[in-house]
């Protein structure tokens, strides 16, 4: 197990480095410098600005100094918000996005696996069709449509819940969390249904039943562990998808989180901010993929053999 964790972690390093390198040079390759505005700036000011953001150095040197700064946790100043650094802005948005993502993931995992398991217990009955049709709706209904519809129904027509903000008024976290979680609940329902169906036909479950174990123990203790395995492997990619989903949800509900910063940075052409957030989010995603692989290998020892030879 330790060998698996060690070697799998080593794999993550080139990925993160690749992300940083590609992002850095892509952003540098962007046409139009960050200060090419309509307003003409005197050459001295231009030079001073370029020196401040180290744009006067050759690209390779910029890259090396960016890496060195990054290791020390310094992502440089924001182009758009004067006097504020990128890490400051990220740290400001992170707790909000993390909270939103956590609620959404909880909703997705709890509702999704519950629906999937329920459906798999009685396949091809109403108990299967109803949750699975709902899951299909969840998959085909993108968050940028579900969110506004929820706002329209529960926020405006029924006036039950606030429709924007985060922690400003009572209950304003409910709609964004549901909007973000719904699609992943749908995926997880489908995954756990097929996982459970596969496990239910295995010999060891027949053995468990033959031993005279009550059905609840058979399901809860023996079937769930194998049946929910695909869900555990899915959590890493789901986390990545949740982060990009938060771009939309934070925009719809005007939540000042990382996702909104990212989209705004994209519009403002705030290159250091784009670079910083991309690197940060990507690293986060790679780390979560890693954790999800480790969790899957912990539950299913066969996966550890990937590195045995």
């Amino acid at each position: 197990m330790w060998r698996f964790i060690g070697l799998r972690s080593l794999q993550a390093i080139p990925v993160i480095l690749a992300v940083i390198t590609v992002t850095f040079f892509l952003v540098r390759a962007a046409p139009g410098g960050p200060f090419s505005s309509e307003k003409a700036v005197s050459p001295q000011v231009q030079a001073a600005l370029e020196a401040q953001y180290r744009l006067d150095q050759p690209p390779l040197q910029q890259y090396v100094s960016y890496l060195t700064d990054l290791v020390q946790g310094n992502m440089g100043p924001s182009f758009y918000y004067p006097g504020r650094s990128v890490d400051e802005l990220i740290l400001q948005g992170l707790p909000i996005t993390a909270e939103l993502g956590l609620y959404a993931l909880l909703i997705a995992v709890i509702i999704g696996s519950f629906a999937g398991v329920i459906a798999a217990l009685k396949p091809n009955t109403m108990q299967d069709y109803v949750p699975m049709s709902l899951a299909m709706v969840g998959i085909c209904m993108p968050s940028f449509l579900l969110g506004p519809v929820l706002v329209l129904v529960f926020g405006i027509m029924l006036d039950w819940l606030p429709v924007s903000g985060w922690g400003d008024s009572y209950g304003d976290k409910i709609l964004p969390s549901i909007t973000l979680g719904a699609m992943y609940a749908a995926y997880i329902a489908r995954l756990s249904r097929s996982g459970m169906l596969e496990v239910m036909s295995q010999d060891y479950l027949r053995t468990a039943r033959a031993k005279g174990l009550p059905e609840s123990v058979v399901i809860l203790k023996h079937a769930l562990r194998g049946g929910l395995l695909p869900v555990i492997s899915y959590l890493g990619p789901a986390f990545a998808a949740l982060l990009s989903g938060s771009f939309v949800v934070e925009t719809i509900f005007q939540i000042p989180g990382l996702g909104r910063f990212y989209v705004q940075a994209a519009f403002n052409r705030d290159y250091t901010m784009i670079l910083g957030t991309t690197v940060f989010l990507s690293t986060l995603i790679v780390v979560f993929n890693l954790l999800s692989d480790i969790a899957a290998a912990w539950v299913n020892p066969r996966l550890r053999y990937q590195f045995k030879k």
Partner: protein
Amino acid sequence: MTSKISTQSLDHDIPKGTSLWEDALVRLRKNRLSMIGLGFLLFVMIVCLLTPWIAPYGYEEQNLRLGAIPPSMEHWLGTDTFGRDMLTRIMYGGRVSLLVGFIATSVALLIGVTYGAIAGYAGGKTDAFMMRLVDILYALPFMIFIILLMVVFGRNLLLLFLAIGAVEWLVMARIVRGQIQSLRQQEYVEAAISLGLSPAAIIMKHLIPNALGPVIVYTTLTIPNVMLLEAFLSFLGLGIQPPESSWGLLISYGVETMEEYPWLLVFPGLALTTTLFALNFLGDGLRDALDPKASRD
């Protein structure tokens, strides 16, 4: 696998066997949801294809005095704040949404099948290296990268096709590689090799046609993903740009005015959702028909 059994058996007076494809077609026909999906898709595609001739109003036609009115006899789906006919806008938007779906999927298909086939056929170290590369790329957060590309190189349609296609080929490559790897152990491939056929000819003539089932299934399931991705980007304002239009863009306009004019959100939303539904049902049906062993997740 019916086809193989029928060719192997002695060829005197046995009833004509059904081919794998005929078999699959029969199975697909029995799946009512898939057939409805297929019918609906054909309908949407024909409507979108014929839009310039059958659209009730012109694409640029405004009627500012009219403003936004709810559905009526003259405007079946109402009009937007500029008095433009929503049905017309949705039809034109559908053209772009479907085009992105099909072209980006074709890009993914082309790269994925070629890459997967080469890796699977070559085997050994080449295969290990190529698939490792896919693993690494797979771990990259591509959504973020597409946004980055759109920011850096401006928002043009061609780049959008390429960027989305470049993301979606990875799974395709894995599927094809797995298929080819198991197929190349079979005797008929050995026979082809001993006849002196070039690897390219073997891959193109013998391997890819036999690996087509899962490829078709996955292609059908990729199209809705791609369309979602396009809509997602357009919604954020990073995809299709006006005067071009797509369902994602129409939805994002609809959101702005949904309190006063909910039909501007509801109809484009319905168009996108039902099309995605149809594609997913068709994909599920094709999977059951062509690849009965595959798990449904």
